[in-house]
């Protein structure tokens, strides 16, 4: 190891750290320190003017998991993720195939698919509120033409969460479509032609050629969709506020409620720790997958 090489190395290390410094400061301020603070806050009781905060150990966690609302909210969120993710990815793929095909009005079709992505969720929720309103809402007016009675979509525990999921899928699919569309554009058309010459049906081609080629995109979109299933709760503020009777309450909305409506920081913190743990597991799995794929390259 020559000295000049060592000096270069050191200089590079210095440059590296200097370049990273601003990002690391911000990441510490808004990701790492708050994560630590969240864990810390979850270990103490709530302080009020009458009772100061004291160390509670894991009591808050025990209290949280004994609350039926906790299980309700977790179940809701799992259902929300479990339905909206595959549905929006499936629809996105279909959209991308269609938007990539040679059809009339292709420009309109693409634009129409993508439009919801450009709407703020709050705006979308306002529009959907009037789709869902019983009796005078758009959906009920359309089903009314076929002789169905009014349905209280947002006001019944059986349908409220599904109504919220529908808005989510509508909003997400067009966004994911863009990624698929980009991926489709990179697939040489010769492949399709070759498959046709081989006599492969369209379905076979899609399953055996297209889907494997789109796998990296699917993985990327899946991660995005997973993250969104945790953080996409804006429409709850307008549509249901998590009701009726917590039927459509999702985890992050509940955290917001505990922290900002009930001023119960410990419980909000404990719930946040729970979410972070789950996200951490997802991250670990994801990194493993990336590692694997790196080996294939």
């Amino acid at each position, binding site marked *: 190891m020559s000295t000049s090489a060592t000096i270069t190395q050191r200089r590079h290390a210095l440059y590296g750290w200097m370049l990273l410094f601003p990002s690391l400061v911000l990441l510490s301020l808004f990701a790492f320190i708050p994560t630590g603070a969240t864990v810390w806050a979850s270990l103490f009781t709530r302080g*009020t*003017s*009458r*009772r100061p905060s004291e160390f509670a150990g894991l009591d808050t966690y025990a209290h949280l998991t004994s609350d039926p609302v906790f299980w309700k909210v977790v179940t809701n969120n799992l259902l929300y993720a479990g339905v909206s993710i595959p549905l929006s990815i499936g629809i996105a793929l279909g959209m991308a195939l269609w938007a990539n095909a040679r059809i009339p009005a292709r420009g309109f079709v693409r634009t129409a698919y993508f439009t919801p992505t450009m709407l703020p969720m709050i705006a979308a929720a306002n529009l959907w*509120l*009037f789709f869902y*309103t*019983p*009796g*005078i809402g758009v959906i009920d007016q359309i089903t*009314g033409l076929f002789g169905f*009675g*009014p349905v*209280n979509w*947002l*006001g*019944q*525990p059986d349908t409220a969460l599904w109504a919220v999921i529908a808005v989510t899928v509508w909003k997400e699919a067009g966004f994911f479509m863009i990624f698929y569309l980009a991926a489709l554009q990179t697939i040489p058309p010769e492949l399709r032609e070759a498959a046709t010459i081989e006599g492969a049906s369209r379905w076979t081609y899609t399953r055996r050629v297209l889907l494997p080629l789109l796998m990296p995109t699917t993985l990327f979109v899946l991660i995005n969709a997973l993250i969104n299933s945790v953080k996409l709760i804006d429409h709850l503020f307008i549509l*249901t*506020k998590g*009701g*009726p*009777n*917590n*039927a459509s309450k999702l985890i992050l909305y509940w955290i917001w409620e505990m922290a*900002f*409506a*009930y*001023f*119960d920081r410990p419980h909000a913190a404990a719930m946040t720790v729970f979410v972070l743990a789950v996200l951490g597991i997802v991250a670990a799995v994801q990194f493993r997958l990336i590692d694997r794929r790196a080996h294939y390259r």
Partner: protein
Amino acid sequence: MTNFFSRAALAAVGMSVMATPAFADVNLTMYYPIAVGGPLTEVIDGMIDRFEADNPDISVEAIYAGNYDDTRVRALSAIRSGEPAQLSVLFSIDAYDLIEQDLIVPFDDVVKGEDGKAWLDSFYPALMKNGQIDGKTWGIPFQRSTIVMYYNKDMFREAGLDPESPPQTWDEMVEAGKALAGDGRWGLMVPSTGYPYWMFQCFAIQNGKELMSSDGTETYFTDPKVVEALEFWRSMATDSKIMPEGTIEWGTLRQAFLEGQTGMMWHSTGNLTAVKDAADFDFGVAMLPKHERPGSPTGGGNFYLFKGSSDEQQDAAVKLIRFMTAPEQAAEWSIATGYVGISPEAYETEALETYTEEFPPALVARDQLEVAIPEFSTYETARVREALNNAIQAALTGSQSPADALADAQSQADRLLQPYR
């Protein structure tokens, strides 16, 4: 279009220049909510402008912050982040929590002497109840309501009912509802999102029972009369079928009423002006029907004074509150919204006298104050309320029987209130 946008940009720049506060000795910040319809921020801004014109040494920043919950969140966020407000209009039922968190000061310590006492006595007693805790006055009424029954006189006529004699008892209401319902239209709608507990208080008090003790530490959800009240509410959808199943959205209900979807609706009197302006049919307003007794909870927002202001700010804040609650402003606010004029003097102002002569429904909410009870409020109020709301929604949507749902809510409330007993 470009013209439109350049104008918008210009307007924005103009506003940002104008937004720099004029030089004043005392600066006040207040947050206020709006939970009913109409472009009401302008009315408030107009009042504030008049106040500032009268008091050039005081500058007020009045911030509209959404609904009651949003406003509480915003006001407390501001305090926690070191930019406190000196006063705010918040839910009248937030008083316990605000005291518990040691954030507000009682008015008795600030407005002293005969004059102060006379001022505190000038409001309707029913509106003062929510703000009186531990022998002190913590809230001054500003936008206060009771719940009234709006009914569509045209639909009444069609159904062969007398449009001038709205139902006065539960039984009459169900009868009228049956006559009105059918053909995709309903007899009655009572909102059950947003503030379900508030509507439920009506049924409970009409059945002869209040939901909580006056010291905010006990709730009576499992009282047979309370359970019966919820059973009745639910039965209107299941048995007499005068009301749709499931929950009814607070926000879209007014639209449904205006579209002739329902012959009657229970709603805050704060919606009166919005209904009056938009209805293209003949409508009436009545007191809520009685069962064992008549009754409605009061509702709405009170002025609170926050701790941590300088003496000058506190004096200025009291001055502002006294201005905003003076008869002229109370009358103006009542006409603009439908909220109750908060003092008898408000109804003696020329403006409100003229208005109520032309439009007698504006007096219904006030007349109902005679039988009004304080709005549901306890310690840990947000969470106890949430438990009750969930029970009501569970019962109305049929996922639990009223008795079971209320028993759950009661046990949650007991758990939350135990430390305060």
